[in-house]
């Protein structure tokens, strides 16, 4: 008995050559298995059946649209995201350095009174 997952992996070309060869032989020998494969192929064929084709003027319409929306005026989101990421990293580093600095500045204020206390008679 072949499970659907194995049959789909066969149809998707994801089985290794030996497994694929064995399964091909089994399909040829078994009408029920062959019918299952036929139904699976039908499912695959229907995914793109009926897809329209572009007409000859499609590229011209894209060019016309590109003239109406020049690249320079459009925010490049990918680029903006990369810049924002760098700014965020820089801000995080700056914050970490500042906190460390402030921490060192504040520590003596807590230590000194204690040290001073131990010096009292």
């Amino acid at each position, binding site marked *: 008995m072949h499970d659907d997952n194995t049959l*789909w992996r066969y149809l998707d070309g994801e089985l290794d050559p030996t497994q694929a060869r064995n399964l091909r032989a089994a399909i040829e020998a078994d009408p029920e298995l062959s019918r299952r494969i036929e139904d699976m192929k039908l499912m695959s064929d*229907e*995914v793109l059946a*009926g*897809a329209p084709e572009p007409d000859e003027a499609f590229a011209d319409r894209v060019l016309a*649209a*590109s003239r109406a929306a020049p690249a320079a005026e459009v925010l490049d989101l*990918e680029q903006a995201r990369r810049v924002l990421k760098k700014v965020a990293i820089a801000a995080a580093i700056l914050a970490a350095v500042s906190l460390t600095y402030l921490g060192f500045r504040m520590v003596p204020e807590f230590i000194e009174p204690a040290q001073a206390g131990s010096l009292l008679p």
Partner: protein
Amino acid sequence: MSRPVDPARTEAQLIDRIRDGEEAALAEIVQRYQSRVFALIYGIVRDRHEVEDVAQEVFLKVYQRIASFDGRSKFYTWLYRVAANAAKDHVKKRSRRPAVALEDDAVLPDPAHGPAHQAQRKEKRRIVRQAIADLPANYREVLTLRELEQLSYKEIADILDLSIGTVESRLHRARAQLKRSLLRHA
């Protein structure tokens, strides 16, 4: 109107020329990929009348965002990602209006089988087509990429920035749902 003049130009050369604003290069890229982009969008959107508008939006984005294509991945990977995202955004904007499965009016008769077999197959195709339209857009996306150019699970994972396991899982669930639809009507 500027038209592509040198079909021998490599894709990398065309992309460089698009960056420089050369219209002929953009036209060449559109012509090389338009059929596949139409098919990819149709597979997700499932309405023939909406495909061209989304495809135009896709190529416009390619033109506008070509600077963000760094060449580390293959161009088609980047293009298909842009197209799949545009198609899914379109489905979201269409909100709750269900996708319409078209009538199967373009099926050629198969002389190797009798009329009963052909009628049964036609009915199965109608059921499957409706079941595909009823799938979540994420499932239609992986199914479409799989059928578009027989892309491997790895290639689909690269395009969608998913793990191979997620691709397999979505394919498996989508197909199981299609099978259940067929069995319900058997």
